[in-house]
């Protein structure tokens, strides 16, 4: 009630106040039948009840990635905490390919987490180290171990220590409340960045993970803001007449691409953040919006309806040439580059509705990834393995994620209200 009243007075900016509301949980919606069997044995402790079950956090991380199928604890005949105590033959008989064991002990105010990764079929230890974690950082320590295990086995850098930004909306009409939040990639530890009685949308992480750009209507008009997460300090970057929409950072963090309609129709512009000068890139009689920078910084994706319906185009910054990329169906929008630049993820409309799809740039082939029907706002994990997006479950807006090959997916339901506009952070470590 108090939160409601303060929001009435205007926009409240609460820098990283942890709140129980808008907490997200995880539900696996589609398991990958080709996932690698792994067992993460509960970590030994010195008898103390720990605030977090480290092995469970690691197991959940690995399962969520779609690459691994963790063995249920009920099926574990033995609970070793050291590699020398592992009976490889018996784990092998359970078809377990990899095994993670470890131990958590007190270290002053914090913890020491020792872990080892074993290749069961080769009967050998692959990895082993000790991680220190502060008093409130057990989950962070577990995510770090997940990253190491994932990379050691798959050769792909883990993205479990990353975060997501998202927007919440509650209520209807004039009582509607919007919130901008940041949480761990698994939905835990949500922190409010901004609250407003007016719409907030299009959050975008700076490449260094320190700032968010977003659009807020708090002045009664759309404006693009950049907010530093640690301090809460923020700057209004644009408030031109008309649309101020869809900010996207350049890979070097010096420029923001955006869609502005100050010259008549929505066009793609690039702002130099240091001097705030804006340069117009497109000049069409149509809608041009939703820019996204290529990982090499040399081109931009954008959505345009110059052909009649929305399709995705690429703008080459050196030559100024524009090339249409999507030709499958009559609605393709909000393209986002894969981190290697070889594919794009987008929203594709078919007879099944609006779905997340991937298009390989070489072949031009488009593949639908999601099984939901009302998808929006795809955002790619920094290692390219997963795409998080907004969709609907019943009457509520929820976040969902699907693996880049479409084999695995999970959902992050919220206890209340709509959750939307997810943005996956870059690597933060």
């Amino acid at each position, binding site marked *: 009630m108090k939160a409601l009243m303060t929001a009435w007075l205007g926009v409240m900016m609460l820098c990283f106040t942890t709140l129980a509301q808008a907490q997200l949980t995880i539900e696996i919606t589609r398991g990958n039948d080709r996932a690698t069997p792994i067992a993460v044995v509960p970590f030994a402790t010195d008898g103390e009840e720990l605030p977090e079950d480290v092995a469970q956090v690691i197991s959940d991380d690995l399962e969520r990635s779609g690459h691994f199928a963790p063995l249920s604890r009920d099926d574990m005949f033995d609970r070793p905490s050291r590699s020398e105590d592992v009976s490889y033959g018996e784990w092998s008989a359970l078809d377990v390919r990899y095994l993670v064991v470890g131990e958590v002990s007190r270290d002053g105010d914090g913890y020491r987490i020792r872990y080892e990764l074993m290749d069961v079929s080769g009967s050998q230890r692959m990895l082993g180290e000790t991680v220190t974690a502060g008093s409130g950082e057990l989950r962070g320590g577990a995510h770090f171990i997940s990253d190491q295990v994932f990379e050691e086995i798959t050769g792909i850098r883990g993205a479990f220590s990353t975060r997501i930004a998202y927007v919440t909306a509650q209520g*209807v*009409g*004039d009582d*509607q409340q919007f919130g901008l939040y940041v949480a761990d990639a698994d939905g835990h530890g949500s922190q409010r960045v901004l609250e407003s009685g007016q*719409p907030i*949308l*299009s959050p975008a992480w700076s490449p260094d993970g320190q700032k968010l750009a977003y659009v807020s*209507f708090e002045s*009664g*008009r*759309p404006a693009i803001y950049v907010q530093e997460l640690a301090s809460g300090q923020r700057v209004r970057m644009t408030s031109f*007449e*008309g*649309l101020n*929409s*869809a900010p996207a950072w350049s890979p070097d963090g010096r420029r923001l691409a955006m*869609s502005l*309609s100050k010259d008549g129709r*929505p066009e793609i512009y690039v702002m130099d953040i240091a001097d705030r000068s804006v340069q117009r890139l497109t000049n069409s009689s149509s*809608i041009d*919006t*939703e820019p996204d920078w290529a990982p090499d910084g040399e081109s931009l994706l954008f*959505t345009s*309806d110059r052909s009649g319906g*929305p399709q995705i185009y690429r703008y080459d910054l050196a030559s100024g040439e524009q090339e249409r990329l999507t030709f499958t169906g009559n*609605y393709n*929008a*909000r393209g986002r580059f894969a981190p290697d630049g070889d594919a794009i993820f987008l*929203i594709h*409309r078919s007879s099944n509705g*609006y779905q997340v799809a991937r298009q390989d740039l070489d072949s031009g082939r488009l593949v639908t990834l999601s099984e939901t029907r*009302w998808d*929006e*706002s795809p955002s790619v994990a920094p290692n390219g393995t997963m795409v998080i997006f907004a969709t*609907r479950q019943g*009457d509520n807006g929820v976040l969902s994620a699907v693996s880049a090959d479409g084999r695995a997916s999970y959902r992050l339901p919220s206890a209340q209200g709509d959750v*939307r*506009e997810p943005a996956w952070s870059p690597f933060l470590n």
Partner: protein
Amino acid sequence: MPFKSHARLLALTFSLALIAGCSSTGGTQDGTTDGSRSGTDSSDAGTGQVSSSGVGTTGDRASQQADGRIPEVRTIYFDFDSDTIKSQYEPVLTAHARYLRSNGDARVVLQGHTDERGTREYNMALGERRAGSVSRFLEVQGVSPSQVEVVSYGEERPAVQGHDEEAYAENRRVVFDY
């Protein structure tokens, strides 16, 4: 659908205020509005009456609207993926044009809205296109561009909740916000 009834109540309250001769602006009115109420049964109040230039409005139905009062119907609706003004709403726009011409210091924000289908940022642009087509209609009718501002909310401010065609139809709209 609690909001719907809430909006109707607001609309009713607002209409009663008009009948009482109060000319204060009531802010955004997103709900379904009873367009049949003419509001000509009370004398002019509030803003002074400025003589109309009469361009294109002589003797037409818009003249039923007293020039000193903001026309009551302030929301018009659009077809899916369309910014075409339906002929049934032309009298509404003509009445607003007449009001704005007659009241040179009146300002209106045209709020463009879409339904929830499709991507948010693209819908933001579609909402602007809808409000822009209303703005051009007003300018053709002689309204000064300085009196009109376009703000698109895309799909962010639905008039009604719901995920069916009935809800979508009520959300695809332009609202005159004086």
